[in-house]
Structure formats: C-alpha cells, structure tokens
C-alpha cells in the first residue's frame, strides 16, 4: 500500500463553473493530510470525488488503489457541517452504524460516546455543534475505514471544541494507523495534526508535500529594499512584500540561502501557507510563479 489517493488531471465542472481544475496529486498512505485553501477553492469537491459522492468531469482518480466508490467499507467520510439525523438519538445513530456497516466496531463507538460524555438517549438535533461533530466522527471511525476523509469538520466549532475534536482525531489516527485527509480553511487547525499538506487555491493545487520537508525548504528573507532577488536553480520566490526601507520574501529553496544581502529565518506553517494564498490572489504574479517552476 503506497498511495491513499492518486489523481491525474482530475477536473470537476458544475455547468460553466470549474470547481477543481487539472489536479494531479499523489498522497501517500499513512499520513494525516491537511487540505487547505480559502472557501470555494475546491476542497469539498476533491474530498467528495475521493469518496465517490461526485464523479469527475475529466481526469482519473484512484483511491486505495481502486476507483472511488460510494458506500465503500474502506472509506470513512465526515461531510461538511457534520450532518446527523436530528430526530434520531445518539444511540440510534450507533444502531444505524451497526446495521449498515459489516465491520462496525461497537465497542469503539460506545466507548467514544462514553468518553465524550454524550447521553445516548439524547436526540442528535439537540447536541451542540462540537458534540454533533464528535458523533459524526464516531460514526466514521467505528466502521474501521482505511482512509478517513473529513470536510471542514471543525469549521463551526468554538476553540475548545476544536481542540477536543482534533485531539480525538489524532488519537484515533495514531491508534489505528489509518490515512486521514482533512480539509480546513484555517492553517492553525491543521498545524496541530497534519504531517502532509496540500494547498488548493482557485480550484488548482498550489503546493503539496510533507510538512517537515516544506518547513525545511521555505525561508523568510529580509533585506534592504530592492536588494537583488536571489535566483538560482531550485530557488523560487513565493511571496514578496516591500516597505520603504526593506523587502521581505518567502522563498522556496532546497539548498540554504547564503546571500549576504539577505537575512534568512525559518518560517512557520501558517506564514508559508498564507504566502501561497496571498500570492495566488495577485493575478499578475501568477504567471511569474508558474515560470519559476
């Protein structure tokens, strides 16, 4: 098992609107993959293509080595807004899971619900946003998937519930060794849990790679204004901002930058992702960026 998800030229159009354009990815199994991008970047579309809820307009996608299939026992999916049946109780959700999934882990489901302090007799419609998300996650993990997909699972949660949810997710991923792909428009959410990152902007993949490697190859450079921009093989300026006296760059380079005109500092994940998101928002720079590759 090497690839959790592998796509080639994957494209999804709704009428005239292109939600995902020419996406080529290879996400290795065994990672917690963060899918980050602004709203409308195509994160939900990519996840729904992966779990077979959507069919691609063009291109190919293989999930766990086969075509994506809705209703597969190998994939767990927590949809956006973590839908649950408002009229069913927590216990009835677990009963539904047991009826509909051959590999259902009753013990895992029940102990998770107990650990979370949820009342099994409570109607799901009366749960708080955090509890709802936890119930939806429980439904997805108790079917014992090999690949767990989560679409903005914490978007509607307060910071405490967010932390608890991500904590639970990390424990599960570590215990079971499943591959996880989780989308968010907030890098801070992903920073805690993800070891692999995909940045989607404007329906395109902008960047992908292991977090450690990405952090090791991105640098913040500061120097006098209009200092010559460092160039060379494998050096790419992701983002540049200038004040009257100084310039600040985010640069991707496999080799360390030892240009005396610039001071190099490490970047954190948020700064790095924001550099990509900001730069993509400037249409003029996009072409330059493309040519740097």
């Amino acid at each position: 098992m090497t690839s959790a998800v592998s796509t080639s030229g994957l494209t999804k159009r709704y009428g005239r609107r292109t939600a995902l354009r020419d996406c080529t990815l290879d996400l290795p199994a065994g990672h917690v993959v963060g899918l980050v991008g602004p709203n409308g970047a195509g994160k939900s579309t990519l996840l729904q293509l992966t779990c077979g809820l959507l069919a691609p307009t063009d291109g190919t996608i293989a999930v766990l080595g086969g075509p994506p299939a809705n209703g597969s026992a190998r994939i767990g999916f927590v949809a956006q807004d973590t839908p649950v049946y408002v009229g069913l109780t927590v216990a009835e959700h677990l009963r539904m899971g047991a009826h509909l999934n051959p590999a259902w882990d009753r013990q895992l489901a029940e102990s998770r619900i107990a650990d979370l302090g949820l009342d099994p007799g409570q109607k799901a419609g009366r749960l708080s946003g955090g509890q709802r998300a936890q119930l939806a996650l429980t439904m997805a993990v108790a079917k014992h998937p090999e690949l767990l997909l989560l679409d903005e699972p914490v978007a509607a949660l307060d910071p405490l519930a967010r932390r608890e949810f991500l904590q639970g997710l990390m424990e599960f991923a570590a215990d079971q060794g499943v591959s996880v792909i989780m989308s968010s428009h907030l890098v801070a959410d992903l920073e805690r849990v993800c070891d692999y990152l995909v940045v989607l902007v404007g329906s395109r993949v902008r960047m992908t790679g292991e977090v450690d490697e990405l952090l090791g190859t991105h640098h913040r450079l500061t120097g006098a204004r209009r200092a010559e921009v460092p160039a060379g093989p494998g050096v790419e300026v992701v983002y540049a901002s200038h004040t009257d006296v100084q310039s600040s760059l985010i640069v991707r380079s496999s080799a360390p930058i030892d240009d005396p005109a610039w001071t190099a500092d490490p970047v954190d994940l948020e700064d790095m992702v924001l550099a990509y998101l900001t730069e993509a928002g400037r249409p003029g720079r996009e072409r330059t960026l493309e040519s740097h590759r």
Partner: protein
Amino acid sequence: MIWLTWRQFRTQALVGAVLLAVVAAALLATAPGLFDRYHDSGFAGCATGCAQLAQAFTDDVLRGATKTFYRVGVAVLFLLPALVGVFWGAPLVARELEAGTHRLVWSQTITRSRWLIVKLTGVGLAVILLTGLISLLVTWWSGPIDEAQGDRITPLLFAARGVVPLGHAALAFVIGVLTGLIARRAVLAMGITLLLVAAVQIAVPTLIRPLLASPVSSTAAFDPERIDGISISNDSVMRVSLQPPVAGAWVLSNRTVDARGDEFRGPADRTKCGREGSPEVCEGWLQAQNLRQEASYVPPGQFWSLQWRELGVLAALTVLIAMFSFWWLRRRTT
C-alpha cells in the same frame, strides 16, 4: 437499512394506521345496520321488480350518517393518493438531500441504489397495504349501495372502488419520491407533487381510461318517454337530451341527432314548444322531427376488466418512474 427506513418512517406510518383505524371503525360500526336493511328490503336476491326495490333500498339507506359515510368513503380514496404522494413520497428523499444526511448515510457501507431500493420498497409496501385495506373496506361496505345504483363504473366512483386505488396511490408515491429527488427541497417537492397528482387524477379518467374501455355504440329511435331535459333559447335554438341507454353506464357521448345525423338544434316551433304549447304537444312535435339518439357508453359489466387494465397501466407508469428515479439518483444526484 430496513431498521433505519422503519425508524425514519414510523411517525408517518402511525398517522396512516390511525387513518385506517378511523375508517375501519366507522365502517365496521355501521356495516351491520346497512347489511340488515339490504337483506330486509327484499332487494338482496330479488327476482322481480328489482329496479323498484333497489330504488326503495337506496332511498332508505342513503340518509343521515350512512349517506355521509358513503360519501366520505369515496372522498378518502380520492384524496389518499395525494396524501401518500405529498406526505410519504415527497419527503422520503428530499428531506435527506435538504438536511445533507444523504452524505452521512451514503458514507456507511451501503450503495445509494440499495439505500433507495429499501426505502422505496419499505414505504411502497406500506402505501399498498394502507390503500388496499381502505379500498377493501370501502368497496365491501358500499357493495349493497353500488349494487342498487349499478353506477360504480362512472368516473365519480370508479377510482374509489376495487384495485384501481392501489395503482393511483403507488403512482402518486413514486411521483412524490422523484419530485423530491429532483427538487431537493421537501416543502417545494410536496407542493409540486400535489399539483402533479391532481393532474394525474384528472388526466386518467378523461384521457387514459376511455382508451382502455371498450365503449358500446348505440342508435335508437327518439322515445319521448326517455326525455331527460329540453332547453330552448331566445333565438329558438333547441336542445334535447335523452336518458342514457343503460342505467349506471359510464356515458362517453350522448347526442340527439336529426335525420341527417347532425346534432338536433331546432329551431323550435314556438307554437308547439313555446309558451302556447304544452309538454304533450311539444313531445308530439319532436317525435315528428325524425330524431335519433346516438350514444357511446361503457356498460357497468366492464367494471372489473377496466379496473385491471387501469391498474396495469398505473403499475407500469409506477415502475417507469421508479426506474427513472434510480437513474437520476445514480447519474444526477450529488
């Protein structure tokens, strides 16, 4: 999936069971009295003078509560398809698509086709059971009155008797499901379903049922005894309608024509049929006009063959719409 279908449907099922219980209680309570009077009237198993006995029997029973129940029985079966389509069919899928819970349930280990098969079959069987039992009760209870009036093939009764209500209810149910699947909003789907079911209820007796029946054409000489009504307008245009050739038949057309075969329209002879004349004089004048009655009708004896044919057509439409729903679910629903 069967458990989930039942769990989601049980409130609606309870409402259906209550409706069934109310209908059953009302009809079972009044049935002994109705059947006693049927047997006591002499109409049951009559050999001679049946028409008079039938009239006397209906005059006797179609009063008060019995008359109300007789009418309500018809009304319930005409409304049932709309109720089933709007409250059981339309929300079945639309509610899931609206709340997003389809993404939850399709993420379990179940294909969406199987999900819909179980829902359609489970609730569809409930539709058939409810409609079948109510139609059975109403058809049985109304039996003596229908026998006396002999008119259950007419459009006002036909779809409230026998097996045809099953077809209408099943068709309305799948229309509701498909509308919900396409509209993706429960309330919108319910409204559209109501309109569509009403359209079907109008189109079937006016457009489809005449094609399924084998109408009998008859031509008879004008008989003043059979005059049903006469109208004369100010410009002497006269219309004469005659009673249909067979009592209780479903009359498709009934025309009074002149010697050339055109519909008789006068002009009326004012001295005979106006204020100066009298009914007898006018009838005599009409008889001299060489009129004929040309009628086309479906005799009451075709009731069961027409019932099964209409059920067949409705069942075929139901299957087609159900198959289209599966296609739509697989190809067009996200």
